[in-house]
Every structure is written in C-alpha cells, then in structure tokens.
C-alpha cells in the first residue's frame, strides 16, 4: 500500500470509454443506420457499412457479487471478445459480432439464472434503490419488493406481448432515488407516522433552526424539553416527507406499523407522442408484508393486465388513462377513490376537473 501512496493521484477521472468499446463499435461509431429486434432480448444494429452488431440483453439484478461479475466476464470472453455493458435500467448487455453466438450465450445466461429479454414492448428491469440493505431512510425494502414483482411479471420481460413499453421503478422513501416520479408504474415507500423526536439527542446532533426550517409545512417548532433545547412536531401538520430526518438523525420516521408502499401510475419520460408526464397516485397505501409482499405483487399485475388488455398499440399507461379518463381508470381497476387521491399541495387547484368533460 505504501507504494500506492507515493504515486497518489486525484481528479484523474474515469477511464476513457474508448478503451472498452469493441472494434465493431469503434469502426461504426455514429454510423448506425437502423436496428431490428430479432427476438426477445435480442436486437441487431446495422451500420451504413453493412456491419451488424448483435445485442443480447439479460436481467442482471443490480445488487450483485463479485463472483457474478466474474461470471459475466467469462461469458463476455467466451462469446464477444470480453466486451459487455450495462444499461440505464441496470440490465447487462453482451455485444456480439457473431450471429452464431447468440443462442449459446442465451443458454448460458439462462443457466446462470439471468433471463434474456426486456427489449421492445416489454417490461424491463425495475429501477430501484437501497432499502433495508443500505439506507437509513427506507420505508420498505427495495431489492426484495423488486424481486417479488419481477418474479411475477417475468413473462412480460421474456416475451413481447404488450402494447408498448412499461417502465416500473421503486424508491424506498420520498427522496425518490429511483426517480420514480415519471414511471408507468411506481412503487414508493412511505412513512405515515410523524417523526419521533429523541429529545436527549436533538441538541447534541442537530441545529435546531435548520430543523424547523427544513419542514415545508412548518410543523416543527423549537421547544425546551426536560431542560434541553429540542423541537416539537405539530403532528396534524406533518405529511411525512422526512426532510427533517434527513437534516436531523434524532427524529426518525421509520415505523414498522405505519410504513409501507404506495402505488403510482401513468408517468413517462420519453418525448415519444405525449410529452413526459409525472406518475399519479393510484393506491395510497399497502402495508409492508415481507418476504414476498403479495398484496403489492397482485396490485401491480392487476394494473399491468388492465393496461395490456385495453390500451391501443404504442399507448403508454399514462396515455391510455388520459384517453379514457381517470374515473374510468378507477372503475376498471377496482381501486377505491379516496380523499388521499385529491391533491392538496401547492398546485392542487390545477388538478381539479375544470370542465364538464365527464364520462358516464
């Protein structure tokens, strides 16, 4: 390690990507002409030059051990000269120039327990976050819920039988590290109990003015509790954003009885057809039910199938709901409409129905 120290460098940045590009990509960089999806999880990109690049996409799981990564490396060596990549949804992609290698690679991947798919009108991997595996703020686990939901939806990953793409994301708290706020279906961990102030620690760990300032609803005010400067929370004002907890560890919201997940629908990111949309609240609360979260799993299957059976070709979840209207969505999904669905935040008035465009 000593010698490592001598040559200590900083701010040298990541390695240049060119080091990791297969020759066929270097040669055809920026020259791709079109692509075709050959079968689930397999596509070919054809270059102006006629060159063909075959991509095999497999589910990776995201939380993986070094041994698994080494297995990927072996497969890459065996089938594509050691070149591979990962996607923005955390799948692994092997970049082949030999068509003949496609099927053997798929066999090996499936043997390894990594199904191939997710390309085209499919459900791809669920973007997700840390959950109980590594975050202090989590209202639910991330990897566990994702595993259960994808086990159930696997057919939609390995086949292409949907009207369009369906993107699912999960975030284990309102910080939304999964950026779930624009997903066809979002699973969001939520707290439902106001922070419990540990008065013995607040004055040691937190700056009281910052803590009160952190609350968007002004629910926190300074108070002196058994001699110590601390804060008190006006509970009716709290909407459980946990911003106070982020700035002050002495007021955790985590609570087994009241934490759980909410389900959101109809968001999208792409500009294709409809402009990007935020996801909207569908199911306000489902209690955590580890290890398999059966209620969450079936709620999501219900939503996926409802959309799959009713949307027109290309229609994303949100585009479909916009066409039929939200009242029909609630009716068809069997989800009960509640007070919680009605916005009461900053721009609430703009979410009211300001016309007579009603379906009966």
């Amino acid at each position, binding site marked *: 390690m000593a010698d490592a120290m001598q040559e200590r460098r900083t701010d040298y940045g*990541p390695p240049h990507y060119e080091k990791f590009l297969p020759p066929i990509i270097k040669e055809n960089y920026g020259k791709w002409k079109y692509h075709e999806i050959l079968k689930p999880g397999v596509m070919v990109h054809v270059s102006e030059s006629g060159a063909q690049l075959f991509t095999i996409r497999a589910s990776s799981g995201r939380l993986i051990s070094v041994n698994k990564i080494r297995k990927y490396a072996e497969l890459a060596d065996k089938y594509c000269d050691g070149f591979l990549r990962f996607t923005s949804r955390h799948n692994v992609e092997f970049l082949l120039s030999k068509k003949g290698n496609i099927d053997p690679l798929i066999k090996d991947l499936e043997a390894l327990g990594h199904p191939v798919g997710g390309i085209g009108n499919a459900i791809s991997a669920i973007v997700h976050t840390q959950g109980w595996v590594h975050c202090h703020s989590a209202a639910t686990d991330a990897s566990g819920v994702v595993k259960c939901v994808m086990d159930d939806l696997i057919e939609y990953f390995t086949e292409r039988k949907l009207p369009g793409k369906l993107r699912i994301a999960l975030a284990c708290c309102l910080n939304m590290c999964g950026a779930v706020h624009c997903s066809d279906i979002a699973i969001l961990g939520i707290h439902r109990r106001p922070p419990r102030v540990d008065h013995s620690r607040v004055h040691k760990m937190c700056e009281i003015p910052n803590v009160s300032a952190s609350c968007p609803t002004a629910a926190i005010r300074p108070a002196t509790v058994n001699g110590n400067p601390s804060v008190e929370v006006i509970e009716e004002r709290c909407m459980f954003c946990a911003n106070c907890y982020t700035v002050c560890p002495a007021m955790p919201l985590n609570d087994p009885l009241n934490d759980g997940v909410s389900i959101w629908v109809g968001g999208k990111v792409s500009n294709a057809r409809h402009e990007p949309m935020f996801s909207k609240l569908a199911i306000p609360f489902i209690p955590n039910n580890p290890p398999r979260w059966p209620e969450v799993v079936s709620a999501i299957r219900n939503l996926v199938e409802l959309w799959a059976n009713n949307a027109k070709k290309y229609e994303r979840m949100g585009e479909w709901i916009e066409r039929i209207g939200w009242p029909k969505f609630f009716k068809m999904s069997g989800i009960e409409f509640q007070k919680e669905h009605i916005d009461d935040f900053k721009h609430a008035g703009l979410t009211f129905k300001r016309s007579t465009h009603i379906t009966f």
Partner: protein
Amino acid sequence: MADKIPKTPLLDELEKGKWPSFVREIKDAAKTSPMSADLLGQLERSYREKIGHWKHGGIVGVMGYGGGVIGRYSDLPEDFPNVSSFHTMRINQPAGWFYTSEALRQICDIWEARGSGLTNLHGSTGDLVLLGTTTEQLEPIFSELSAIDFDIGGSGSDVRTPSCCCGMARCEWACYDTMAVTYDLTMTYQDEIHRPAFPYKFKFKMSGCPNDCVASIARADMSIIGTWRDKIQVDKAAVKEYADKGMDIKKDVVDNCPGKCMDWDGKELSIANEFCRHCMHCINAMPKALRPGKDRGATILIGSKAPIVEGALLSSVLIPFIKMEPPYQEIKDLVEKMWDFWCDEGKNRERIGEFIQRIGLGNFLEEIGVEPVPEMIAHPRENPYVFYEEYYEEGDEEEEEESN
C-alpha cells in the same frame, strides 16, 4: 467460513422465482466475507421487524475528496459487528457503462479483498457502487483503484457523476456524441465533482435523442437531449415496405403524431416538418424508413429533480437548439454562469430548478445573459401580474421607457 452464514428463513423465500435473486448474491459473497454474512443477518432481522437497521450516515471519505463515499453504520453493532460500519463507495463509471472483462475483474479483485464483495451495477445516478466497507479500507481501496485508473464519483452538494445513453456507440438515432460530452464534462468538472461547494447537488444527464433513454428530463439538473432542426430523412421505398408488410401507417403513425403534421394517402407519407415536434414517434415506429434530420444538435433543459421538498420538477427548455461540437465551450460558459449565480443567491439545499422557480425564470435568464424565447415556455402567463421595473414620471421623455 460457511458456518458463519446465519439462518435466514424469510430471506430464503427470495431465492425462489425466475428473476435473479439478490439474496443468493449476498449469500454467495457471505461465503468469503464476514461483512456480507452480518449484512444477511441484519437484513433478515429487518425482514422480521419490518424496519431498517441503519443509522444516519456520517462524514467519511478519502484524502482530498469531499464526496463519493456514503458513510453507513448499523444500529445493531453488537449483534452484527462486521457491519457496524458499512460504507459505500461511488466509483465513476465509464461513459455509457461499457466495460471489458479485464477491467471488471480488476475491480472485483480489489473489492473482494477490501470490501463486502457486493456491488450495485449500477447506482441510479450511474456510478459503479461498491457496497459496504470500513473506514480504514477507504484509502487503500482508492489507491488500488487509481492504479487501474478508476476514480471516485460524486456525492453531497457537488456535481454528481454525469451519465448518458450509449448514443453513437450503439444507436442510430444519436443526434450528438453523448459519451464524448459525458467524458468531457466529467473531466472538466473533476474538482466540482470531488469537492462539494454548491448549495446542493447538481446532476448532468445526456441523451442522444428525445426518447431520452437516461431519463434526463426527469432527474438531471441539466438535461442535454439530442434533436435535429431540418427535415426528417424519409426512405420512401422503406415506408412502402412497412405498409406492404401490413403496418397501418395512418393509425399507428400519423394519428399518433403530436404535431398533427403528417399525412398518409395510402401511397405517400408527407411530413410538414415546420410543425414537427421532434417527438421521435414516427421514427421509432419505422426505424428502417425514417431517420432524424441531418442538421443535428441538442436541446438543453434545466432543473429536474425528485419531490423533496417543493415537489418534483421536470427539466424545462433553456436552449432550444445548440450544435454539439468540442470543446463545448458555449455550454460550459453557460453552466458556469448558472453555477455562479446559484452559488451566490441559492439557499442551502435548494436545487437549481427550485432556485429558478423562486426567483423567476425571466430574472434568471437576465442574470445569466440568455435571451428569452417562446420555446422556453408551454404558454405565456395567464395572470396579469407583470412586474414592470420602471415607469414614466411626469415630464419624462418618451425615450425613458422601462428598460426591459
């Protein structure tokens, strides 16, 4: 060591099913890593108690770096001593997440020796996340990583590790070189990535076209999205082929065009390009027949973020069209002007998007010296509350009208 692996009846349920199992991964790592074994034990406890067992992160890091490491401590250190501290390191991924087997193996060797052996490929910002190690190991890990040319990414109130879609490397629709821009910005802003000095985090995400495959419009303080401003390239023969193969071009393509600028008479596809909204749909639907135009560049959007605490924001248009040529100086100048203003006037933990909302887009543009154009807005104001900055006094000359 295998005997050290705790009983996990609940987690074992998650080894079932067709989707890759993270539990199997942790168990696999646990064979050689006591850390991972305790992680497994603590996680089983969380599953039983329905609550996490991590404490708030403390400040830990490597020499000379202000970010890139997330401190994490167990709140059950007695029961799970090996995860009493369990920090993650965010390693700056290569642009586009391309690797060679060799590079990956080198990282694995380092991490197996000095960490939990568990990773996230990748974190949702885009970093290669090394999941769980102790404070003492941070420095050695860093020096070994630097020996193989991998550097640390961002965390805290700094520039976060930029990321991008694979762009020109593997996509026919890339309107600019996303990976080149990502690499360039990452190298240009090494100091800003490694030393938090902003009111809050700042994220760059680069997508090669409006399909936005890195979701930049939803989760980047600056979203650079490729587009074109001339005609869509049409291969008429190929269009006909789609039709012959049974595609209902009217229903599938024309009727889905948000610009309502396409027409299909059964033989010819015509596009009124001046009304095209560059949404990509027709191109997506007929990749062999249609392609983005030849005069390509990008739209720069600003300000998206998650909801905490004023509500989620989408990025909005700042520069409708810009040519993307190295060294991208125009963009860097713009970025730095924005940073200066944001650093001077922004509140603590106020993202730039929230900052713009607070001070007003018009004022923001004035400060950074960008002319307002209608492409920046969905529609003009609906309320009559205009702040005129000056007014005539009696006896004024006509000339002295308000400056704006």
